[in-house]
């Protein structure tokens, strides 16, 4: 109950008051990680049953594809050039895909509501106007390309490229992948018209490319976390704590 204890309590209080990431951001982040991985695995399983892509409304094995993925298929009707057929995994894959989609949509709505009303987007994701000048953007890109270690204040905020990448993922990729997913639902198609996307098969093709983009984002994101200090960044996203509190000043 003397000095040492008091300081301890003070520093703990400081951490409780302002963690690096708000509790809601941390919880929604990891829920999204889990559901995204489930969506990815089940999505790849579903893709394997027809690894061909088309543009427009219709496409099947009698149609010339836009492109094909050179992998074996889980259906004997698909000409793949491989002499074998993979086992059918679509039953549980489809169940898991839609269950995870519900979780990601619910989590996303919670996060977006918090982002708007709690000031998270304005404070942490909206880039400062001055950072958007070509010169400042150029400097940031050059720093990233040199794999320069982030400055210490970056442990407490996002740089401009990070902000832009997160905004694209949150406000472009996720809405587009949900929309194109719903556009493939025969019952829902009347409400989420796939026509504006160029047709049912176009929606499926866009769904695939947005997935590919998100996978690239995920790989770069994890690489950046590793480069910036894996343990510290992971701790910041799990418990909210950052180890070198003196760097905060």
């Amino acid at each position, binding site marked *: 109950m003397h000095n040492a204890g008091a300081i301890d309590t003070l520093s703990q209080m400081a951490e409780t008051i302002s963690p690096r990431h708000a509790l809601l951001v941390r919880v929604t982040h990891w829920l999204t990680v889990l559901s995204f991985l489930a969506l990815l695995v089940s999505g790849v399983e579903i893709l394997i049953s027809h690894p061909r892509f088309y543009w427009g409304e219709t496409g*099947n094995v009698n149609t010339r594809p836009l492109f094909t993925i050179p992998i074996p298929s889980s259906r004997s009707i698909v000409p793949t050039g491989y002499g074998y057929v993979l086992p059918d995994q679509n039953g549980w894959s489809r169940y898991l895909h839609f269950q995870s989609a519900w979780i990601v949509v619910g989590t996303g709505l919670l996060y977006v509501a918090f982002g708007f009303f709690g000031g998270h987007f304005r404070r942490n994701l909206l880039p400062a106007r001055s950072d958007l000048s070509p010169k400042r953007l150029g400097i940031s890109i050059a720093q990233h390309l040199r794999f320069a270690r982030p400055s210490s204040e970056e442990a407490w905020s996002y740089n401009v490229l990070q902000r832009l990448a997160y905004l694209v993922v949150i406000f472009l990729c996720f809405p587009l992948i949900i929309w194109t997913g719903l556009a493939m*639902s025969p019952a829902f198609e*009347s409400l989420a018209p796939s026509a504006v996307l160029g047709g049912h098969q176009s929606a499926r093709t866009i769904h695939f490319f947005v997935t590919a983009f998100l996978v690239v984002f995920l790989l770069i994101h994890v690489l950046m976390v590793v480069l910036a200090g894996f343990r510290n960044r992971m701790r910041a996203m799990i418990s909210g704590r950052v180890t070198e509190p003196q760097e905060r000043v």
Partner: protein
Amino acid sequence: MNKLSRRQIITTGLAAAAGISGLAVAAKLAGRYGLIPPDSGGIYGPGETLTYAAQRVLTRHTLAREFSQSQISKDPFAYPVDPLGEEFQRFQSAAFADWRLVVDGMIARPASFSVAELKSFPARTHITMIGCEEGWTYIAEWTGVPLSHILELVGTLPRARYVVYRSIQPEAWDSIDMAEAMHPQTLVSYGMNGGELPVPFGGPLRMRVPRQLGYKNVKYINRLTVTDKLKQFGKGLGSGELGAEDGYAWYAGI
């Protein structure tokens, strides 16, 4: 660590109680309004129930997209089926003159119709897409009797909730709820692209459910059973070895 205050404990307790009773009420209401699918058990039950309930609330009366004549696929794909047996070949060699669609279950007037009788009923034609759960699609013009017409003819009892349809292939049976069965685009189809429904595409009779995926569109149907529960059919999951019993969702609107 903060110590939990008495107020926090009470608030949390009240919130949890409200949440649990809210869920219980929601489940009860969902059951009453037919928002729970037969495959609602298991780890994927919650997601499946949400999907089915949400689509029933949002799309109960919406129409599947209809297309123009020029959009009909020149290259429709007929999914290969298990070999059709001798019995089917006998029907086929007689041009399906003896093929009958038996209707039984919770109806006032059990009946059986020949293909010719079905063709004499008011017909509906629509140009719609059929999509496989694998991801491929084609568009065709389908002609048939609205299932709702047949159900009105035989006098469906008010307690009925599902229509089970069976094929000459015992493994291929499935079922839909009344909302789908009474939907104006749901057909017992006998024609495709202006001609007879070809055998590879399900002729003489195919259940055509344009708001659900291809696997609900069972080929070679010969029996409809109206029922209030699906428990007594197969494993009670609502469809056979080509559907729920093979791990596929009963509701295929997505």
